[in-house]
């Protein structure tokens, strides 16, 4: 089979951990769209879910930082953060090591990836799963793109990685769903937390929805840092999904929620 579902969504820890501090109507609208994304995911009847995340030093650190890493285990655990802080109970999440191994071997034809037989999920994966697979019953294959510790992989390599992942999905019989998670512009975990460059976000989402490769890759890290903060480096996950899906995006939800530190986004992309 192949890729049967592609989407992106926000993963900010405040979405669950600081839900009680947000405007209830805005919070409910976002949570509702995230649950609805989960329904769409299930309608695609996937055998496994690849989550392309940008983790925050849960597994990978500057002592040995991979630009790209893919999990290769039969189970994972999360959240690594304090469950009370995140508002998500610690749980075991199923994986599929054999499927991971086949995908990794194929991706390696085009992109050198690290693999990991141990992986603790942080909020970057747990917050999306909390809404998309609330029973944590769908095998997950975690993918990480280093968006935290410079030097960072160039955007054109994030595109190449997404394209390689798609080719790998096309070689396996399983039905694969793909979700990229990250912020667009945001300045998380700083005193600026809550600042969002909405115009920049909407322009980026427009480029993403058109799946305009040249426009998506037309950012430097310096311009992203200036206009979209260090959180903006996570656009790599959205770019990889666009390269994998090859289709057009539908922005289902976009709304800045300051206490969640990000312009909260839910979007799907057709698969071509």
């Amino acid at each position, binding site marked *: 089979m192949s890729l049967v579902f592609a989407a992106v969504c926000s993963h900010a820890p405040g979405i669950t951990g*600081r839900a009680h501090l947000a405007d209830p109507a805005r919070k409910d609208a976002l949570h509702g769209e995230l649950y609805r994304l989960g329904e769409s995911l299930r309608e695609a009847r996937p055998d496994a879910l690849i989550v392309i995340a940008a983790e925050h030093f*849960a597994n990978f650190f500057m002592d040995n930082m991979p630009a790209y890493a893919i999990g290769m285990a039969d189970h994972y655990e999360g959240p690594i953060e304090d469950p009370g802080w995140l508002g998500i109970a610690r749980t075991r999440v199923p994986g599929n090591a054999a499927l991971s191994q086949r995908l990794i071997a194929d991706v390696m034809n085009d992109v050198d990836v690290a693999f990991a037989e141990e992986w603790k999920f942080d909020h970057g994966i747990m917050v999306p799963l909390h809404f998309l697979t609330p029973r944590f019953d769908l095998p997950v294959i975690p993918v990480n793109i280093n968006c935290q510790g410079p030097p960072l992989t160039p955007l054109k390599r994030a595109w190449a990685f997404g394209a390689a992942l798609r080719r790998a999905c096309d070689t396996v019989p399983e039905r694969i769903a793909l979700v990229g998670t990250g912020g667009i512009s945001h300045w998380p975990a700083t*005193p*600026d937390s809550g*600042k969002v460059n909405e115009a920049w976000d909407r322009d980026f989402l427009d480029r993403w929805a058109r799946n305009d490769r040249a426009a998506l890759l037309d950012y430097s890290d310096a311009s992203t840092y200036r206009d979209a903060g260090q959180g903006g480096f996570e656009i790599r996950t959205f770019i990889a999904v666009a390269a994998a899906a090859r289709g057009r995006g539908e922005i289902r939800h976009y709304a800045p929620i*300051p206490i969640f530190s990000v312009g909260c986004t839910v979007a799907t992309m057709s698969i071509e």
Partner: protein
Amino acid sequence: MSLYGTQKLLFHLNRDAAVQKRYREELPALLEDYELVAEEREAILAGDIGKLYVLGANGQLLMHFAALLGMPWADYIEAMREGVRRHGPVREGIYAMTTSTDEKVAGV
């Protein structure tokens, strides 16, 4: 740069219960295992989130140290502002402050 040592300690502290136990029971000895300059060691010993922020600690590491210290979100954000008030702008890393010290962006 010794910022690496500070961040490595925070990385271990965030993910390893054994390191958290040593943090509680024998902090000075724990700090001997990391390459730190005096002001980093003093900031960690004091749990001085504002100073660690100014020294350049990555926010994704620092916010969990703040949580470990039991700081509510608003106090953590304010501690970083207070750090900038007392010690000046962030010196390294990618988590510099771009708003003013009297601005409450998200209402906290």
